[in-house]
Structure formats: structure tokens, C-alpha cells
């Protein structure tokens, strides 16, 4: 091979590598990114069965039920709709009634959301941003709640 051909083949190899990496990245984004919904959004959103989503809202008052062992069930609400969530494991320290929460998991066929992770806020000033934005857009957010 001449020097020019060599250089071209190196460049072609590099481009093929970058192309493969880019393809993989966007494939993974399509497959692995999980969408965020509030309970009221769910009626309009078309979910694939078994699709992982993040569900956020407030923990509805009086709905926290502790089951066997570490199982727990509660409702997530945006003051328009509620979704029942089940979770097995340790809840975050700041998980409380009427506080913002984000759960991640999938829907069971009977409409119960099975979460495998539950996130609450990091400190008393902070509401998960998605939840705060979602509540604001639904007009049920009171600014004083953030204080």
C-alpha cells in the first residue's frame, strides 16, 4: 500500500469505529432512557407493556401500608389522579406522607405500579425537580411548600 492508502485506511477504520459507537449510543438511548410521568399524564401516554418509567408525585396521605417483611404499598398522587405503588426494600430517609417522591419501575397488568427504586428529596428544602415542575404545570403547586 502507498502511504496515502495507508492513511486512508486508518481514517476509514477510525470513522467506522466512531460510527459504530454513535450507533450504539443512540440505540441505547432509545432503549434505555426512561420517561418521567405524573399520574394524570398516564391516561394520555401510550406505554408499552413492561416499559420502565419513572413515576413521580406526592405520597398520598393515609395510604402507606406496610406488608409482610419489607413490602410497602402507597399511592402517588398529583392531586388529580392516583396510582397505587408497591415496593419491597428500604424506603429513603425522607420518605413521608405528602412529600415529593420519584419511583422507578413497571406497571403490572392490573394497573399497580411495581417500583424497584424509590427516591425522595435530599433535604427539607428540596422537592425532586420533575415533581415540582409537574405540580406547577398542573396548577397544584404552592410556592410556600418549598420553604
Amino acid at each position, binding site marked *: 500500500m502507498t502511504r496515502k492508502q495507508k492513511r486512508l485506511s486508518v481514517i476509514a477504520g477510525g470513522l467506522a469505529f466512531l460510527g459504530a459507537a454513535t450507533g450504539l*449510543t443512540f440505540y*441505547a438511548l432509545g432503549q434505555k*432512557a426512561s420517561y418521567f410521568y405524573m399520574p394524570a399524564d398516564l391516561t394520555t401516554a401510550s406505554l408499552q407493556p413492561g416499559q420502565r418509567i419513572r413515576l413521580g408525585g406526592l405520597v398520598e396521605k393515609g395510604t402507606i401500608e406496610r406488608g409482610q417483611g419489607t413490602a410497602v404499598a402507597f399511592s402517588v398522587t398529583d392531586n388529580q389522579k392516583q396510582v397505587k405503588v408497591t415496593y419491597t426494600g*428500604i*424506603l429513603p*430517609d425522607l420518605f413521608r406522607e405528602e412529600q415529593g417522591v420519584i419511583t422507578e419501575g413497571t406497571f403490572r397488568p392490573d394497573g399497580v405500579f411495581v417500583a424497584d427504586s424509590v427516591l425522595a428529596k435530599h*433535604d427539607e428544602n*428540596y422537592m425532586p*425537580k420533575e415533581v415540582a*415542575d409537574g405540580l406547577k404545570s398542573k396548577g397544584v403547586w404552592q410556592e410556600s411548600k418549598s420553604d
Partner: protein
Amino acid sequence: MVETGHFALVLAFALSLVQALVPLFGARINSQKMMAVGGPVAVTGFALTALSFAALATAYATSDFSVANVWDNSHSLQPLIYKITGTWGNHEGSMLLWVLILSFFGALVAAFGSNLPATLRATVLAVQGAIGATFLLFILATSNPFARLNPAPIEGRDLNPILQDLGLAIHPPLLYLGYVGFSICFSFSVAALIEGRIDASWARWVRPWTLVAWMFLTGGIAMGSYWAYYELGWGGFWFWDPVENASFMPWLAGTALLHSAIVMEKRSALKIWTLLLAILTFSLSLLGTFLVRSGVLTSVHAFATDPTRGVFILCILTLFIGGSLALFAFRASSLTAGGLFHPISREGALVLNNLFLTTATATVLIGTLYPLVVEAVSADKISVGAPFFNLTFGPLMVPLLVAVPFGPLLAWKRGDIFAVAQRLMAAFAAALLAVLVTALFIDGASVFAALGVGLAFWLICGALTDIAVKSGLGSVAPGIMLRRCAGLPRSVFGTALAHLGLGLTTLGIVGTLCFGTEKVLSMHAGETVQLSGHTLRFEGLYPAQGPNYSEDRGRFALLGADGSTTAEITSSKRSYPVRQMTTTESGIKTIGFSQLYLSLGDEATDGSVVVRLWWKPLVTLIWGGGLVMMAGAAMSLMDRRLRVGAPSRRRKSAGAVPSASLP
């Protein structure tokens, strides 16, 4: 004192403007006097910033609640160490620390840069001054840490309990030393572009700064990872959280820079690429600062959100990244290309390293920014988490790790891949043995787990092979070999140590992810539980009182084979009354390189307590490997040719002579 601090900060801002303009202009018109201004101004600016920082730290240490920032983030009952570390446990204070470290590096260039060509030194200091000026303006205009409250409150609002930990004393300073350390590489690159000249000696000046920054960034990330691991009580060491990615991207790019700077220094090749990498690395540091400080991301790091700050940092970001890249586009063509090499050579291996690392950086960047972009254009909220990164970052890293042991053994210019493969036979055999032992003798080992262990051993043994081969193993007598080994350049040991550390970290990750076990259960006092051969007995909950919190301590006894207690592990639920926050303190018992990790959950009505237990095999190697990598960087820094003050043979010609290649 507080007003002194504020005043010192304003003076530092004025001086940084002088530092940004006068030496730069002096270098253009070749005025020695104007160029000489840069050094003293940089040192004075550092002293003033340090004074300002000391003023804030004093206000924190003495609990001066008339300062709004102290009131918001401190409490008189906090232990003194957390009062002091609270200085940077908030937005304003942490930005001040950022600028302090920036001016510290500027002062270092001023102090130790006497062997730099005068115009280069002046231009570097000017760029450094410009960065300092914008960030000082940012602090003064949007994030003043010295604002007073009148009347002064009697008591403060306490520091976020999650931050009341020794980790806050170590993680942010180390991380910032890393982040901001890359500003020197950036300033050198911009200076080289302005001057239109770059050569091997430029790389010799830049490489030690890259090493220093990389060393601290490695430590900062490792420390942050360990802190999150034990503090958050989730037992994970890396979450692919956008804020973690913000520090990981400069690390990946910085690692690439570290390697390409070698090529430039030794072979005078890859000049333009190295320059671009230096710009990109610091740009990613700035982007990280923006992501963490602007409030576009929510995390434990986002102390408070104020939109004006976000816009301000975005402007700084645009100015420096856009400006430097535009300068690069205009001026890069004026730089001459360097030495040629065969694809299979040390240079080729380092190019491969760069290709993989920059691609990996790009995937992390895309994964981190994609949710922000999607939200901006479609209002859909999505999150990109571990599954994405495992699918993209993983496949990119594996071939790179496989290639690592080959690199240092290949010759410069034209290497012999078969000869190198032959030398690596022993390492390969060891890796193969590790795979077989794992697959055959460890219960529940998957194929991936066995291959992962093999990969780790391949890296570790490959690093050792590098030293053995360069000492002449097998070809010379043991005595001569030892003498040769002692005579090897420190940078050879540095490389081997860093690669060894990488192997150890890999082993730790594979061990924890593939062989770790976990149990969640509710326990009554007196009950025992088995986990991976360890027996734990729950002794019960005991209330206790701390300086500014009360806690329930869950006491656990680790039982020996005969049923006697061999160790006690405590995990507690702490309640901080001021912020009305609860935190979980995990209980950790280190056994060899592995850890038994337990964290307490809620108390049920029947008096039982939810307990989460993990057995994490080899987990400490993850951070131990980071320490070994740091040691490698420190070793390389001690190399004769990089040591500060070592006689430099090429000091007069700023120039044309490429350095001789080492054997």
C-alpha cells in the same frame, strides 16, 4: 473581618483584570516590563483570595450568624470540623474555594515558571487571569458569600446533615484541585495558539500540570465515590448520576490528554490533537461546574437554585469554550505537524487509547446532556441511567482494557506486536488461570464474572510484566536485573503503577458486582441472619445523643464459628432536629479487602426493624486502585525530566529540537 474578606475579593477581581490584560498586551508588543507584571499580580491575587477565604472560614468557625451564608449552613452545636468544612458545603463557599484553587495554580506558574519563555509565561498568566476574573465577577455579582443579616439571628439553620461528614473535608478540595488544575493545561494551550508556536518543550511544561491535575481528580472522584457509598446507605459505589458524570468526563478526557502529551513530548507528534484535548478537558471541567452549580440538575450537590447564576455560568462557558475553540479553528493550521509513525507502535497504541477514551467521554456526555436537550425541545422528562451507560460505556472500556498491557511494551515509531505478545504470555497465562479458577471453584460465577476477573488479572500481571521486561527479566542475571530495575526512569514505574491501579479497580468492580450478595429482612432483637458465610446477630436498638442530633443505634454482633462475638457493627438512624432530617449511618466491617455493609431501615409496629445487608467482596479495591493510580501519577511527577528545579538541557531554545526518545 467579614468586610475585609469581601474587600479582598473585590481587590482580587481588580488584580485579575490587570493580570488578564497587561501581560497579554506586553507579550504582543514585546515589553519586558509589562510582561513582568503578570507574576507578582498573580501571587498577590492568590494572597487576597486566600485572605477572603480565610475570612469566610473564620466566620464559619466562630459561628458568626450575622453572615447570611453562615446562618444558612451552620449551627453553633456542630463539631468544629464540620463548622470549618461547612465553609465550602454551600454554593457561595464552594465557588470561593474554586477560585482560590484557580488563583493558587496561577501563583504556582508565576513562582515556578521562571524557565518558561517570557512571552509564553506572560500569555499563560493572562489567560489564567481572565478565567479568574470571570469567576470572581460571578461570585461578586451573583453569589456573594459575605452578605450580612440585620438583625443577626441567634442560631443557624445547620449544615445539611448528609454533608456533616469527614468526606466534605476531603472530597471537594481534591476534586477542585483536579478540575481547576486542568485550567493550567488550558491556559498553556490557548497561549500556544495565540503565540502560534508549539513544540516538544511545550509538552514537557504541560505534562507535569496534567499529571498533578489528573492525580487530584482521581483522588477526588475515588473519595466522592467512597463517601456516597458509605453515607447514602444504598451500598452502591457509582450511580451514573449526572453530577458524577460531570467529574468523570474531565477525568476521561484528562486521561487521554495524559497519554497524548507523552507522544507529543517524546515524539513531537499529535501536537494539534494534544492542544485540542487540553482545551476540551478544561471545557468539560467548566461544563461540570455549570451542570453542578447552575441548578439544571437536581442532586445532593445542587445547594440552591437561582436562575441568574445558571445564565451567568452559561455565559462564562460560552466565552471560554467557544472562544478557545474558535481560536483553535483559526490558528491550529499555523502549527506544524510532527513525527510520523507506523500504526503498530507506542504512538499507535496511545492513539488507540485516545480514540477509545474520547469516544467514551462523548458517550458519557451524550447520556448526561440528552435529558436536558429532550426536556428543552419537547418538554418530555426522561432520565438516562445505569442501563444506558452499562450498554455503551462498558463495550468501549473492555477492548481498551485488553489493549492496555500492550502499550508500554511496544517500541516507539514501529513496534513488533508478536514480540510483545510473546512477552505477555506469562500475564496471559495468569489471566487464563484466574478465569478457570473463578469459573470452576466459585459458586454461581457466570461466564462474564470469570472473564471480568481474568481481565483484571491481565491488567495487573501486564503492569508487572512491563517492569520485569524493562529490567531485562530472563535475559540477564538477577543481580544485573535488580540494578537495571532500580535504574529505570520513575515514569516507567509511574505507568506500571497507574495500570496496576486500574487492574485493582477493575477487580474490585467485578468482585462487588458479580459476587456480592444482598438481603433485606425485618429483624427482632436477638435474631440472627446468615449472609455469604457470615453470621450476624441483631442486638437491638439503643438510643444515643450526639452534639446536634439524636440517634437510634442498631447494634449487630458478627459471630464466629463457635457462636462468640468477634466484632460489633453499628448502623444508626440519626435525626437532626434543626433541619428535621433523618439520615442513615451505615455499619461497615472490613474483612480483608471485602466489606460487610448493613443499613438500618424503618421500625415496624411490632418492634422489628428492617435491615438491609450486603456482602461486598473486594469492594475496597475499587478505591484502593484509585490510590494506586494516584501513586503512579506521583511517581511519574518525580521523574527526573519533569522535576521542578531539575536542570533542563533545552532551556534556551524554545524550540525546534524534539526531545530524544528514551529506549
